[in-house]
């Protein structure tokens, strides 16, 4: 099995379907997004087949590119798989390999697929002690240990000590760690060479990207939401320019997307929006999230996840005000990574703030089974949302890729009930 080929076929089918069944309600840029993805998957497959260095789960796409490689986010690939029938097979592999089974399936299953050779293997494994999410860090360590075994290629591994707090000292410390990583990568992976000038260019591309996401943030405050829920829940990270080989094409996608949204807001839209909700955590592909919410005339304004940079809550790349000075490229990376670290109270603060900024009537909190750090925060967020904003939260529990815990009919019934209740409260 080759999951990259499956993803290529998936996008080819989607593009063909879009051409055969045009939808005037769809953004033109949505098609561009699927083209960007297709290019990305094709280039990844070619790189894999040619034996070029690949850096999956790398701390940063810009840094991977500056080293002359490509970052690959396994979870990002897995969540878009057209066929989830392999889930039981990967789940069994997780048990057989001795990996923790009661953990976020978005991490355990792709890691199993990578070890089984169905996703591209790393040329260098990087684990960090406490990065974006603890489960991410935990599973990257497991992945690094597995790929370091002789039978899987003795892939060199490197561990980064990521600070738990955010401060200028922490940024400097992490930047130092990233510097060590760069040296290690150059010494241990043939073909990798750090280019600081290239790094600066890539950071500029990422700065433009964040500027676009900030514009989108503002446009999303418009009622009704000027896009479909599927288009709305495209996470900014999925279209980070440096995740792909053609950053300019990705920036083009963002440019056209923003132009279209501005146009829709200026002209007004014939669309009924009864409710406006924040969806917390990834919309699981095994549920018809978009179909159900569109039927309920419920707009999903955002996928509430670490979104500090993309909402303007945290400084953008290149910001010199925060520490009163210009940062080096590695310090920029460190600041970006640390800004996205998920911490309990900060997470809850951010979710409440997002609801306030975007005028939400309710929160749909998908409490992901096995999510060690934000799974348990559902109740805290619900209590704060009720107390501080006067809005209710529905907490749904389930996995991302396995429908066992939350069957589609139960999801439909609970969402319908919740929507009725929120409307009753509003009236």
């Amino acid at each position, binding site marked *: 099995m080759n999951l990259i080929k499956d993803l290529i076929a998936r996008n080819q089918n989607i593009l063909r379907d879009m051409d055969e069944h045009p939808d005037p309600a769809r953004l033109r840029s949505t098609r561009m997004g699927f083209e960007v993805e297709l290019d990305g998957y094709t280039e990844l497959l070619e790189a894999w087949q040619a034996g070029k260095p690949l850096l999956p789960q790398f701390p940063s796409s810009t840094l991977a590119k500056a080293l002359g490689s490509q970052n690959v986010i396994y979870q990002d690939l897995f969540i878009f798989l057209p066929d989830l029938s392999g889930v039981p097979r990967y789940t069994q592999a997780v048990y057989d390999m001795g990996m923790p089974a009661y953990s976020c399936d978005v991490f355990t299953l792709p890691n199993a697929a990578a070890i089984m050779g169905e996703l591209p293997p790393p040329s260098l494994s990087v684990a960090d002690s406490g990065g974006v999410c603890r489960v991410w860090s935990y599973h990257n360590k497991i992945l690094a240990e597995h790929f370091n075994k002789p039978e899987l290629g003795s892939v060199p591994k490197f561990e980064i000590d990521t600070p738990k707090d955010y401060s200028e000292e922490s940024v400097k410390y992490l930047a130092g760690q990233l510097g060590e990583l760069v040296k290690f990568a150059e010494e241990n992976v043939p073909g990798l060479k750090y280019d600081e000038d290239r790094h600066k260019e890539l950071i500029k591309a990422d700065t433009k990207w964040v500027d676009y996401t900030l514009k989108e943030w503002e446009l999303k405050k418009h009622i009704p939401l000027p896009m479909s829920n599927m288009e709305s829940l495209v996470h900014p990270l999925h279209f980070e320019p440096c995740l792909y080989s053609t950053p300019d094409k990705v920036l083009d996608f963002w440019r056209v997307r923003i132009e279209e949204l501005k146009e829709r807001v200026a002209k007004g839209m014939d669309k009924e929006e009864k409710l406006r909700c924040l969806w917390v955590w990834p919309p699981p592909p095994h549920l018809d999230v978009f179909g159900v919410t569109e039927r309920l005339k419920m707009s999903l304004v955002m996928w509430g996840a670490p979104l500090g940079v993309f909402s303007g809550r945290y400084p953008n790349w290149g910001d010199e005000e925060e520490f009163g000075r210009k940062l080096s490229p590695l310090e920029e990376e460190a600041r970006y990574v640390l800004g996205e670290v998920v911490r309990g109270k900060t997470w809850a603060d951010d979710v409440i703030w997002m609801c306030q900024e975007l005028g939400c009537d309710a929160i749909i909190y998908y409490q992901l089974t096995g999510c060690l750090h934000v799974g348990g925060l559902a109740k805290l967020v619900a209590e704060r949302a009720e107390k501080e904003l006067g809005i*209710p939260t529905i907490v749904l*529990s389930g996995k991302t890729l396995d429908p066992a815990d939350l*069957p589609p*009919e*139960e999801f*439909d*019934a*609970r969402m*319908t*009930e*919740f929507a*009725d*209740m929120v409307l*009753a*409260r509003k009236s």
Partner: protein
Amino acid sequence: MITAGIDIGTETTKVVILDNNEVIAREVLIGGDEDAVGLGKKALEQATAKAGIELTDIKNIIATGLVGINIPFASGQVAESMCIARGVERVLPSTMIALDLGASKSLVVKCNHGKPIKIARNGKCAAGTGKYLEIVSKLLGVETDEMTGLFLKSKADIDFQSTCAVFLESEVISLIHMKTSPEDIARGAIMGLAKRTYPLLLDVGLEEKITLVGGLAGNRGIAIALEELLGQKLLVPPEPQIVAALGAAIIARERAS
């Protein structure tokens, strides 16, 4: 206009038939969810026979209860919380919170003029449901209905350590072996159920007028236990088990008009 509401539970199926605003028949059929459609049809037929009408006289039927089951002879399915809020407004309009305790669910609905404004439920946890009591009553060799009698004769409080219905069985067996009286075990179980339900009430915010509905509402021991915990009297309507079906019939009438 004649309308009907069907409430399909895991152990019983309830039907209420309304002629405009008057209840002309009700039916409670014991049977599980193995053949929900068949039971729903049977309960409906028995209710229409009691009312002296034909099925075709019913203008609109709304179903509620178990999800994911298509009831072909109902025009639609409405969430339990909505049906309970409507039903309880009809039988006890002063209700601020409806607490629905059934065989496999505990559902709390804060209501405002017949509409749910906050909901809390037990999710997949059996603690706080009829299942919890059923486990204990089987071990004591009594019917669930008899647990109240034992509860009222209890002389000591036992705090069950298990918060989970799965581990409850082994804990009760240990208590029996330690010669703990059935009365005290019954009290422990009923208080345990009440304690599992209490956080749901806190979730929606406590109010003065709490009405107990559902299959377990007729269990006096549960009402006493909850009143002890809450420090207030609970309201219990004359036919608590059919409140959701009544609400469904009311919604059927609203939609048909």
